[in-house]
């Protein structure tokens, strides 16, 4: 069973009503959207919504331990780790983008699952809403 099929089955079994994916593609440090994508996802837990997060393109660098917006006095990304752990939020990355942007030392605390680009079409369509930030 593919990763996407097992995910869909898990959701069905757990009666998750609305499946929402938040996507960020712009790099952290340069823009706030990485921070916002997590903040928005975490805000969904009050309702019967199971949010997921997809990190794409330049935003992929946000998955690295080496990436530190706080080195420039900007809002750190690592503050999201405890919420990812608390809510068990699913965070996805894209293999080809991690390679393209030479992302090293991926921080395990994201619990990131890497998808291949060819899986993205089915992945997007397995959600009710895919919201790009």
């Amino acid at each position, binding site marked *: 069973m593919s990763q996407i099929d097992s995910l869909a089955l898990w959701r069905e079994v757990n009666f998750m009503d609305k499946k929402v994916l938040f*996507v960020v*593609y712009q790099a952290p440090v340069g823009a706030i959207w990485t921070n916002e994508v997590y903040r928005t996802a975490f805000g969904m837990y009050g309702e019967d919504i199971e949010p997921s997060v997809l990190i*794409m*393109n*330049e935003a992929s660098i946000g998955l690295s331990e080496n990436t530190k917006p706080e080195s420039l006095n900007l809002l750190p990304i690592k503050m999201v780790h405890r919420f990812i752990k608390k809510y068990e939020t699913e965070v996805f990355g894209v293999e080809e983008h991690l390679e393209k942007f030479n992302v090293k030392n991926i921080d395990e605390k994201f619990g990131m699952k890497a998808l291949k*680009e060819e899986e*993205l*079409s089915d992945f*997007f*369509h397995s*959600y*009710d*809403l*895919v*919201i*790009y930030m």
Partner: protein
Amino acid sequence: MALVLVKYGSDNSAEKIKLQTAKNSDSIVLIQDGIFWALNDELKNIQGNINVIKEDFLARGYSEEECKFNLLDYSEFVDLIEKEEKFIG
């Protein structure tokens, strides 16, 4: 299956992925600067039913004849919103 909303042109990497991952049964709507995708052969290999917001296309200096795809007014856009349960944008 899904309403796919594209608001930036072909220099936007996210919009490229949005279009490349669209399925045959999707309704794609090119709005605002998304209309630039409708020029030339940009959408040659893209699946889905492609629609262009007419007033955004015309306001950017193009004529209706220059659009190979279905031009929508806002009433028709709302019809599409009613039709498609899923949203990707």
